[in-house]
């Protein structure tokens, strides 16, 4: 008895403490999940409409079967009780009944499989796409390359843009928390978009719930999926295959726009990329490199090595580190080839790499005074194979 009382009191106290966060009010995410959403995302493509339909179809059949079967069981529980004086019957087999309740479920299951088959076949037909986009999974961001159709040649990285302060509970979270990126994928409405998926390191998965698309991104292999968005808007998804520590922090955002808006975006993006395309023969001052390097560091390195360069756990401190303060070749090697858990950062541009290396060598308590230029990395890439 005393034990039970103690348990009850402890439990009530804990419950009171735990119920406090339910008072926070959040709003639905535009293009993403609604608060307390009960069903799939609203369909944006015919395929997703089919999936919705299939799901309701299954739910209704399963509910009917549930009601019938558990109705029978409940009846039995209520009526066939010893306490009501019910005496046990002695039957214990019936081939007829066994055949009936094997054949009927078999027919039901076949009935379920037929509409599903149609949708499976439709989902696999990636032919005759208007635009083809390659989605590359990285630890931990997506890269997109528009490889065929209007917009061909555009490529960019798409990284989570939620500030770390929100993740670490130092700031209020926004309504697009964890499902917002710096560069969104833009596609025209009512056009068939083929998404080719691959990855650079481990398996990731590209998905947008509203489209009814999910496809693993497998390193060294190419897979594909397709969608034809029928509504203008912004739609979101999250990486759907465990890919390491930041698995929860590499979302997908697709903006569906009109044909005219798409063409506008294409030319604007191409201009923007041309401007950003850095001439690796340019030289920069220490200050310019440190400024740029600070941004590159914040977007890519601080997640493991921390903003203060002190690292933690498996991730070494860069502040006072012997590679960072030692011969440049050592740091070229680590940045271009990776080391242990640290992946290779060769996909960053020469300018970005030069900037971040200059930044680390001249920040915190590191005062090498060294300036690394983009051309240094051009040379490093050539010599480090």
């Amino acid at each position: 008895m005393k034990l039970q009382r103690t348990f009850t009191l402890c439990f009530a106290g804990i419950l009171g403490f735990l119920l406090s966060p339910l008072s926070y009010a959040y709003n639905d995410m535009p293009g993403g999940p609604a608060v307390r959403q009960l069903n799939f995302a609203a369909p944006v493509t015919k395929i997703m409409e089919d999936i919705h339909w299939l799901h309701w179809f299954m739910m209704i059949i399963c509910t009917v079967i549930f009601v019938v079967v558990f109705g029978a069981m409940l009846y039995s529980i209520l009526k066939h009780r010893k306490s009501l004086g019910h005496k046990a019957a002695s039957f214990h087999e019936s081939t007829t009944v066994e055949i009936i309740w094997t054949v009927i479920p078999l027919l039901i299951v076949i009935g379920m499989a037929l509409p599903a088959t149609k949708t499976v076949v439709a989902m696999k037909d990636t032919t005759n796409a208007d635009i083809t986009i390659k989605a590359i999974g990285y630890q931990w961001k997506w890269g997109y390359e528009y490889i065929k159709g209007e917009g061909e040649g555009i490529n960019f990285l798409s990284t989570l843009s939620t500030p770390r302060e929100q993740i670490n509970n130092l700031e209020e979270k926004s309504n697009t928390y964890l499902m917002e990126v710096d560069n969104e994928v833009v596609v025209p409405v009512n056009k068939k978009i083929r998404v080719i998926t691959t990855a650079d390191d481990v398996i990731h998965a590209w998905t947008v719930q509203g489209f009814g698309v999910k496809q693993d991104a497998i390193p060294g292999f190419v897979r594909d999926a397709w969608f034809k968005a029928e509504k203008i808007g912004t739609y979101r998804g999250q990486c759907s295959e465990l890919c390491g520590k930041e698995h929860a922090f590499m979302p997908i955002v697709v903006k569906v726009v009109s044909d005219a808006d798409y063409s506008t975006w294409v030319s604007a993006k191409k201009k923007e990329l041309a401007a950003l395309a850095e001439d690796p023969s340019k030289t920069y001052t220490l200050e310019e490199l440190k400024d740029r390097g600070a941004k590159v560091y914040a977007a890519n390195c601080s997640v493991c090595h921390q903003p203060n360069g002190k690292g933690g756990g498996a991730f070494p401190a860069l502040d006072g580190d012997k590679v960072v303060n030692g011969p440049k070749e050592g740091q070229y090697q680590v940045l271009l080839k990776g080391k242990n858990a640290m992946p290779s950062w060769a996909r960053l541009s020469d300018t970005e790499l030069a900037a971040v290396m200059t930044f680390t060598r001249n920040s915190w308590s590191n005062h090498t005074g060294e300036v690394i230029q983009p051309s240094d990395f051009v040379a490093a890439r050539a010599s480090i194979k």
Partner: protein
Amino acid sequence: MTTVTTIPDTAHGHGDHDHAHAMPHGWRRWLFATNHKDIGTMYLVFALTNLFAGGTMALLIRLELFQPGLQFLRPEFFNQLTTMHGLIMVFGAIMPAFVGFANLMIPLQIGASDMAFARMNNFSFWIMPVAGMLLFGSFLAPGGATAAGWTLYAPLSVQMGPGMDMTIFAIHLMGASSIMGSINIIVTILNMRAPGLSLMKMPMFCWTWLITAYLLIAVMPVLAGAITMLLTDRHFGTSFFSAAGGGDPVMYQHIFWFFGHPEVYIMILPAFGIVSEVIPTFARKKLFGYSSMVYATSSIAILSFIVWAHHMFATGMPVTGQLFFMYATMLIAVPTGVKVFNWIATMWKGSLTFETPMLWAIGFIFVFTLGGFTGLICAMAPIDIGIQDTYYVVAHFHYVLVAGSLFAMFSGFYYWAPKWTGYMVNETRGKVHFWSSMIFFNLTFFPMHFLGLAGMPRRYADYPVQFADFNAVASIGALGFGLSQLYFLLAVVLPTYRGGKKAEAQAWEGAEGLEWTIPSPAPFHTFETPPVIK
């Protein structure tokens, strides 16, 4: 039973020892145990310990997921927890517990004096604590325990630190233990049944374990293959799963799931067996459709070999593959349904009472069937594209594994504990345990269906704010569920071993079977002379 038998007791190797001295005492009794009851008890204690360890990890996971944002755990540690929670529950809790039940009950149910290979039985058990220490010890390795998910997909698992190697070694050990245990069970059942006890007269629990043992022998070596390839990719320069070297990461998934799918049936068939014992007893009516149940169980086992790629619908299989695996998976619903109908037909027009074991068995049917429905929904490939790797899948497998396997084990515990301990379990406390587990279980896992449909992925340390409410409810439910199991240990299990109302040989009015013909508690040696069955 203390009469000295004149038939030499060669099965135990006791030779001509006087039985008054035959039972060893102290630590030797346990370390050198060859008695199936002792070994079975050790397995159950081991499993319960792992249940609490894995459960603590689950509570830490749910603590972090209670609110959006990262409050308590770094994401890399969070994924160590999700991985180890899965491995410990599957390999440390569920599987050893069922082996414990097998050891305790199979010889009693078939009238055998012990398992066929008593010393190998000892070895099978004692491998497990060693493996358990390796698994737990991996948290202390540089970089911590492996964080690749219990499924250990390459290439992520190839990236992991030395904790991964410790896990691989632990799984090898546990696999060896399972294989040896299965050989023991098959030989015992096929060779040591009492005269007159034909296979089609044997209790359903023995049938389900016979079939499970064949499944184990077939698939544990496949898992061993998969993790060995992982080991060589990690350390010996092979590239089984690395495209750069000519390999294929998806091959890992095929090999793993060829093990993995029969594995989940390995974890549920003995549960079906337990429920098939409990329901007839409390309905006071024979199991309906015994032969049907045998055929249904066998069909489930055979079908379980051809459905593995339903875990891989998003990997990019050709259309024919998607369709084949969808159809084959949906087919398994048919024999499973047959079993549910047979249980209900056993209850139908019976003379029902609702002691604790029966509550658990009925609860099992209800909640397991819900899990079965969500499994059928996952089997539909187009729907699966939407819910693969989301909390819908997490909800599905917890319904079938917790509300399925674990609840059936509780049913078996309450049912057979009088035979093991000699005391009836306190009914009121059993009912408290049942109802609180049922309520908190559903509170924890039902909202996860909504989270999955809405798109919340699994193995996420943090999530968009719109998922906050259902996550909070799930975390509260998890706490309640965990406390219910603590209540089980402290208020039910420990007191039951210490005392209570004395149990009869036939502890339950409607119970039939050889185990109910011997005294409660079962003497150390039983059925030294096999009974003759007419």
